[in-house]
């Protein structure tokens, strides 16, 4: 509980709580609830699908086609699953504003309830990964060190040692993972948004994913310690070299100017 209570101070904590509350009470709860409950919520779910379909027709159909079959402007959404929708819309990447090398993270324009409805609709088009449960994305009880090794094997090549992001070809990039909701990190691994490859449960188990989330929480969280002082972006030798030149050598030259300067002379009377 220590981790959770620490996270309460996060500026986005209220939003997360709100979103979680909405998710918990929203009609989509059924989608990832145990099967026996699903029946009871069947009506709620079909209601959500209907609502989602309406939202989809307004916001998404122009690119992804009226039935999610995809057009030249957007890929097919059949079988991408609720997790993909929750990630893409929940991080503001969808709906996309303009074509470019990569669709960036933006302000989220749908409420979580709406996102859940959209996800329910897309999930109804074909089976795909579901939105992870709260337990699945909690760093609680996970093995941080194992997560670190997994992160360095699978993720660091694009996202940097501690998830600060990095460059890909032709203007594409792996975004920084700082401040990203663990749920979205989980969904990204599972669905492989845009050019990111996916890491399905068959090759990167749910436990593995949880470990990775715990590692990121430990090394790139809000309270992560940088024992030696300023982190300098966590980018390695380039920013260190720049700092050394500007502030290190800069300070020493300023001192040298003082040492060598002439002392003020008494005014001539």
């Amino acid at each position: 509980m220590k981790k959770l209570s620490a996270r309460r101070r996060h500026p986005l904590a209220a939003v997360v709580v709100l979103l979680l509350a909405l998710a918990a009470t929203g009609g989509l709860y059924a989608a990832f609830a145990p099967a026996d409950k699903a029946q009871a919520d069947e009506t709620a779910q079909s209601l959500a699908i209907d609502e989602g379909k309406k939202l989809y027709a307004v916001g998404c159909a122009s690119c992804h086609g009226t039935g999610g079959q995809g057009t030249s402007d957007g890929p097919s959404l059949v079988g991408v699953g609720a997790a993909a929708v929750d990630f893409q819309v929940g991080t503001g990447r969808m709906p996309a504003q303009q074509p470019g090398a990569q669709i960036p993270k933006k302000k989220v324009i749908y409420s979580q309830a709406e996102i859940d409805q959209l996800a329910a609709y897309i999930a109804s088009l074909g089976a795909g990964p579901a939105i992870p449960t709260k337990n699945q994305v909690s760093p609680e009880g996970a093995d941080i060190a194992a997560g670190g090794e997994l992160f360095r094997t699978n993720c660091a090549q694009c996202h940097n040692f501690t998830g600060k992001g990095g460059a890909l070809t032709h203007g594409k990039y792996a975004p920084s993972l700082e401040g990203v909701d663990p749920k979205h990190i989980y969904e990204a691994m599972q669905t492989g948004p845009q050019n990111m490859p996916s890491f399905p449960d068959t090759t990167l188990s749910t436990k593995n994913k949880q470990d990775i989330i715990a590692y990121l929480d430990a090394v790139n969280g809000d309270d992560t310690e940088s024992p030696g002082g300023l982190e300098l972006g966590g980018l390695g030798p380039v920013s260190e070299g720049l700092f050394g030149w500007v502030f290190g050598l800069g300070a020493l030259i300023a001192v040298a100017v003082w040492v060598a300067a002439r002392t003020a002379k008494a005014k001539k009377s």
Partner: protein
Amino acid sequence: MSTTTTSDSRSREKAPAGERVADWADGRLGIYSLAKANMRKIFPDHWSFMLGEVCLYSFIVIILTGVYLTLFFHPSMNEVEYHGSYVPLQGQLMSEAFNSTMHISFDVRGGLLIRQIHHWAALIFLAGMFVHMMRVFFTGAFRKPREVNWVFGFLLFVLGMFTGFTGYSLPDDLLSGTGVRFMEGAILSVPIVGTYLSFFLFGGEFPGGDFVARFYSVHVLLLPGIMLGLVVGHLILVFYHKHTQFAGPGKTNNNVVGMPLLPVYMAKAGGFFFLVFGVIAAIAAIAQINPIWGIGPYRPDQVSTGAQPDWYMGFSEGLIRVMPGWEINFWGHTLVLGVFIPLIIFPLVLVAIAVYPFIESWVTGDKREHHILDRPRNVPTRTAFGAAWISWYFVLLVGGGNDLWATHFHLSINSITWFVRIAFFVVPVLVFLATKRICLGLQRRDRDKVLHGRESGIIKRLPHGEFIEVHEPLSQDALHTLTAHEQYKPAEIGPTVDENGVERKVNGPERLRAKLSKGFYGEDNQIPKPTVEEYKEITSGHGHH
């Protein structure tokens, strides 16, 4: 010596204790003759003359902290499991080198501080040497009699780079290990012997279990030993040559004007050591460097984006990143030009700046001693060459950090690579031409200032209605300072036919030299400095403009 007369020693018995110690030392070490020459040695005051001291002191700081670090560091690649106090690495397999670096960082009190001081001081040491070298270059302080010291300094810079690289590799973390693997690839690219060199260096296949121990002895013993010798030689020569100075009233090529070593420079230079150490310690308190705990232990199948060496190796990283992937296969052999060409250009970039002084002295044919520094504008070709070289170096640094430029300025990494490929050839030429023009412009301004005086900003209306700006004549100090520089005339090939009508052969080097000399000092390559006659004509004519 037992022959010291008793009367002599008796007469000194009453001398203060300090003097008696000095006498004792003099009898054995001859310190008085040394002190006579050096105690009141004169050093001129200028901030740029302290850049060398920045290097010297950061070097001393590196040695002091380095010795401390050796007390805790284990240069071994034996695999161990981590059980120190840093949680996100608990139970991970790592080499003893990495483990002991973690121990220094988290479990030795003050260990992290010393590690950070050591690393920051190294970055500053190299940066200081770079700037110091450029100061010497642009002011022409490398001219006779200081050519040998220029070479010493250059060697120190190059050795510093390799000492830094080997030190950076010691913790055996994922980032430095990637750098070592790059080094393995570069060695493998050497034709014929590359594979053997690599196997000898790593004790077999990469990574093997030897390179940390081998780099360790190179890093703490071999290279610093040579560097220490060079530093001592460098300093002895500085003392022996006496320091250069800028032109100014009272300053000639035959004197040096400044403050004595005792007491002023003892206090200033001694104090400066503490200032440098203090600043570096404060930086190590404020800014983190090389956080190996976040980087993780080395594994040859893992990597992170943003894999770069420390800044001083950045230009070689740029070379290797922008090189096209050329590879030639013939008769069962592979010539890896894509790696080998950068490996060859890497020393050439450095040598380009190192040999310039010798080329210049050949072109001028000047065999005299020079102790008065040039203002960069007064030697346009040298200044333009230096600026072009710096721009070249900088272009390569951009290439070495192309991924970070891409992410931070939202550019395409491919476009940056292409930019660097073209800029590598184009930018130095442009910078050369632009710098030369700027220098000539500044020379013209100096000339105007000398002949017409300084613009005073006062506007005067003449009786016939014309407005003029009053120019104040310069003081004699300023006139002297602005005209003290020498100007070479371009070398001529000379008559090719002697008095008997026999034709003399003009060899290639001679012709080249005449051509270069014209490019250095010919018309349009320097502005003739004002002569006394010109000055008198203008001032006596009461003319302002």
